[in-house]
């Protein structure tokens, strides 16, 4: 840093020297103040992990490793196991990715290669608008609009054609011949919510995140590379699949992990449609529970060991999302390094 002390010596009067000293002192103070603010970011992350671990210490101490593999969650006997909410969190997030990744890929392909120029910016902004809608709105829509839609139209169809126990007793070809699939779509509940519904709502929520990352990185592919492929006679699809996707692979995976991180930690949308049932079920149509929804539903009324168990759940959630997001950011940085940024 060039500092005022570099001014030629003969010109320095006592007045100026005092001013230089003052400036230097202010500079140091200012730098310390800013650095302290930067450290608050670190403190928040460490504090969030530390406070939930501290809050969950009773649950970890009481149940040990059993906490992770027990399916029992019973405030009556004060026994708590985390497997049901962990299972619900993972399954809903996986369903969300299964739907959101191909759709996001399609959207970013459309926006970078297919759509005419005048259409790209408005459609892109509209999709990004989805990211701005608060999650509680997704929750309400999921509960009052989408769940009834699922129970009226989608669920009967799935039970009829995919379940080993359809209402009319006639098992369709797919569940009769493909093992395990029948179990996924068996349900006695009239409620339209459940694991599948929550997964779909989550998918809609993470599509804008994944597609905006994909779209952004697709645009970083050098035009020269793409044009070379076109000149050799490639079709648009071949250019995207063989040139664009390999070039951006790490960032695309990063974007997908970013979406996964969002889906794992999402609370409100899931709390509304998942049904909040503490039971392990293979069926995608059955209600379930996720870590975040369990905390949202129970924490205010919980006390003692139950509160500690919920804190322990929060700690697990935080650590897992932290790792997922860490991978996401590292993957995204890899492309940025390649770009020389």
């Amino acid at each position, binding site marked *: 840093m060039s500092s005022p002390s570099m001014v030629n010596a003969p010109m320095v009067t006592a007045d100026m020297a005092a001013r230089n000293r003052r400036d230097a002192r202010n500079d140091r103070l200012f730098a310390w103040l800013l650095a302290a603010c930067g450290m608050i970011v670190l403190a*928040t992350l460490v504090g*969030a992990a530390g406070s939930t671990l501290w809050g969950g210490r009773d649950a970890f101490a009481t149940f040990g490793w059993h906490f992770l593999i027990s399916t029992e969650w019973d405030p009556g006997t004060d026994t708590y196991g985390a497997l049901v909410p962990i299972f619900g969190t993972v399954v809903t997030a996986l369903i969300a990715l299964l739907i959101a990744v191909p759709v996001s890929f399609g959207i970013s392909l459309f926006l970078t290669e297919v759509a005419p120029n005048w259409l790209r910016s408005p459609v892109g902004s509209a999709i990004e608008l*989805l990211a*701005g809608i608060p999650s509680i709105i997704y929750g309400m829509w999921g*509960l009052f609009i989408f769940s009834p839609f699922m129970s009226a139209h989608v669920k009967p169809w799935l039970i009829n054609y995919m379940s080993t126990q359809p209402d009319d007793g006639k098992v369709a070809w797919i569940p009769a011949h493909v093992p395990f699939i029948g179990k996924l779509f068996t349900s006695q509940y009239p409620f339209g919510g459940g694991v599948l519904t929550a997964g779909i709502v989550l998918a809609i929520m993470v599509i804008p995140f994944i597609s905006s990352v994909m779209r952004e990185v697709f645009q970083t592919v050098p035009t020269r590379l793409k044009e070379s492929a076109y000149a050799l006679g490639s079709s648009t699809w071949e250019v995207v699949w063989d040139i664009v996707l390999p070039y951006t692979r790490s960032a695309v995976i990063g974007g997908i992990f970013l979406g996964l991180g969002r889906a794992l930690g999402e*609370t409100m949308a899931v709390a509304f449609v998942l049904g909040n049932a503490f039971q392990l079920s293979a069926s995608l149509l059955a209600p379930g529970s996720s870590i975040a929804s369990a905390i949202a539903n129970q924490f205010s009324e919980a006390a003692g060991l139950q509160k500690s168990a919920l804190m322990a759940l929060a700690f697990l959630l935080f650590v897992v999302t932290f790792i997922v997001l860490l991978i996401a950011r590292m993957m995204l940085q890899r492309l940025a390094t390649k770009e020389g940024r």
Partner: protein
Amino acid sequence: MASNNSLYLRRRIANIVALLLSSLATVVGLFFLAWILWETLRQGISALSPSLFTKITAYGEDGGLANAMVGSLLINFIGIAIATPIGVMAGMWLAEYANRSKLGASVRFLNDILLSAPSIVLGLFVYTIIVLPMKNLTDGAITFSGLAGGIALSLIALPVVVRTTDEMLRLVPSTLREAALSLGVPQWKLTMQILVRSARSGIITGILLALARISGETAPLLFTAFGNNYMSLNPIDKMASLPQVIYQYANDPGDKLHAIAWAGAFVVTMFVLLLSLGSRLLFARSKVSND
């Protein structure tokens, strides 16, 4: 020749199918956006009434959301008032002081992670460091509070402000810094009076985006601000907020409460969308004027 033709045909068909599917994916995305917005508009507008803005939630089905709206404004204001100075200064530190240091790089990296960290865990963090100690210190007189809710929201707004400030400052041409430093301007003056001014609209955009982000947050408020059926302007008292009342009413079996919840959802959505639209316009205009 024949096999050559069939290969060509296959490639063309694969191309057309892929491009059609990608258009379909876009239509699906837009369809859900339209569906969600349409239902929020339809259900929300039909439930709008003057009493929504004048009556409090204590009246239940015959009440409104006045206390929740005031509470939301207050909590959001506290959140932004805390996150803005800290976030802007942390962003300055990243861009101007720690741009090339290892520590700065890792803080920038971790800030991006905090950006998508689960908000409910941040709510529990604030519960542990604010709500519980307050309760213990005051023997239970003060437990949940609007202040705690605001602090929880500030942790969610913070990474947004940090990131935009950092990015906007790094866009300021370095010639500006060199010119000021060569005139003997100390670095703190350079940062506060020159760089911030030239990146001002970008930083304000970031603050507006952060406000939009926290206005719809529900999960961290459930166990920090908690909720209150009466009007409360006292920041260390329990405080209602729109998202929390929406959550409570939507889980209630009463149809009339559902209608009020939809009206609240409509208000929140409009607020958030107008904010993000406004910040986009502001940013677009500043870009044009800089060119």
